[in-house]
C-alpha cells in the first residue's frame, strides 16, 4: 500500500512539537498543519471504483487539501484523515469512478 507523502511530517510534529510561543512567532516545522485531521468535517465520502479509473490524474490535480495521493501504479489513493468531502473529485472525474456517499459515523 502506498504511503501518504505527509507521513514523515505527521511523525515529526507529534514527536517534536510543543505549543510554546517562539520568538517572532516563527513556526519551525513545515507542513505541521497535518496534526489537524480535517476528515471529521466530512458529510459525504468519496467512494472509489478502481475498475472505472483511467488514471487521468484529474482528481489528484484538483483536490484542495490535498487528500488524494498516488500509489505505485499511479492510481489515486484517498486519505480519509483529511478529505473534507467537498465532492470536486467526483464532479470532475471523467469516468464516474468516484461516487459521493453519505457517511455514517
Amino acid at each position, binding site marked *: 500500500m502506498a504511503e501518504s*507523502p*505527509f507521513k514523515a*511530517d505527521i511523525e515529526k*510534529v507529534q514527536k517534536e*512539537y510543543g*505549543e*510554546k*510561543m*517562539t520568538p517572532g*512567532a516563527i*513556526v519551525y*516545522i*513545515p*507542513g*505541521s*498543519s*497535518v*496534526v*489537524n*485531521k*480535517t476528515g471529521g*468535517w*466530512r458529510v459525504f465520502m468519496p467512494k472509489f471504483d478502481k475498475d472505472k479509473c483511467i*488514471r487521468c*490524474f484529474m482528481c*489528484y*490535480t*484538483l*483536490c*484542495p*487539501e*490535498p*487528500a488524494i*495521493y*498516488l500509489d*505505485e*501504479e*499511479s492510481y489515486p489513493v484517498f*486519505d480519509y*484523515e*483529511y478529505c*473534507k*468531502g*467537498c*465532492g*470536486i473529485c*467526483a*464532479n*470532475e472525474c471523467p469516468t464516474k469512478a468516484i461516487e*459521493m456517499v453519505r457517511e455514517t459515523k
Partner: protein
Amino acid sequence: MAIRKPPITTREYWAPGHAACAGCGPAIVMKLATKAFSEAMEEKYGDPNAFAIAHATGCMEVVSAVFPYTAWKAPWIHVAFENAAAAASGVEAAWKKLGRKGKILAIGGDGGTADIGLQALSGMLERRHNVVYLMYDNEAYMNTGIQRSSSTPYGAWTTTSPPGKYSIGEDKPKKWVALIAAAHQAPYVATASIGDPYDFYRKMKKAASVDGPAFVQVLAPCVPGWRIPSEKTVEIARLAIESGLWPLFEIENGDFYNIKFQRFPKDGKFKKPIEDYLKIQGRFKHLFKRPEAIQELKNQIKEVWRILGKEVELL
C-alpha cells in the same frame, strides 16, 4: 501495469490540515502554484526548493497559518494586507545580495492586490524585481465576510453591494489588474482559471522561469462567497472560460499588439451562455429578475475583449 507519469510534480508544498472551506477554489491555486514553481526552479537552477513566499493576509494566509501550525512546506512569511509585493521585493533584493539563486513568490487575494496592495505591486513591477506576483481572484474580501472589492464583477451580490429595490448589486465594472500589470511592460503577465488547471500550471511555470517580474491573475471560486455547492468550484471556473466571461491570455513585455489567447474560439463565438455561469451562483440569483443587468454585464465583457483586440459574440 505500466506506471503513468503524473502531469504535475508529486512534491508537496501545501499540506492538508489547513482550515479552508471544503471545496475552496483558492486552496487548489496554492497547491498547484507551488508545485509549478518548484518544477520551474528545478529546471532552471537544479533546486526545486529555490523559492520563498511572501503572503498578504486574506483567506489563504489565515487558513494556512493558524499558529503554532503551518500548511506550508516552503519558506513563507505572513505580511500585512497591503505589502506582499513590497516584502517579496525586499526578500528578492536580499537573496540577490547573498548571491542566492531562486525566485520569490508573492501571493495576494483580489482585495490585497486590486485595492490596498496595488501601489506595492506597481513598485515591484517597475523596479523589475525577480518576483512572481500571484493574485488569486475570488472576487471579494472573503476572509472578513464577503465585502466587495474593485475586482468584484458587475451585478454580484456581496454584503456591501446588496441587491434590492434601488440596487442591482455591485454597480461598477470589474477592474482587470492583469491589464494594469501588463502596462508596466513586465516580462510576463497572464490570466488563468482553476477551470483549466493545466493551463494555470503551465503559466505559473512560465512566470517562475522568466527573468524579472511576472504577474498571474487566476480565477478561483469561493464556496460561501459565491453561494455555490462545494463540488462545483472547478466546474464554475471552467464555465467562466467557456462562456467568454473570463479571457485567458498572456502578455509579454507589455506588447498589447501580440497578446496570446488560450481556448479562444476560432470564430470568436463563445458556445456556452453566460447565463449557465450565472445561474449556479447564488451571488447572481437576483439578476434573473433584471435581464437588463445581465445585458449590461455582457456589454462590459465584450468591451474588455475589444480592448484585448477581439470582437466576440456572447450567448
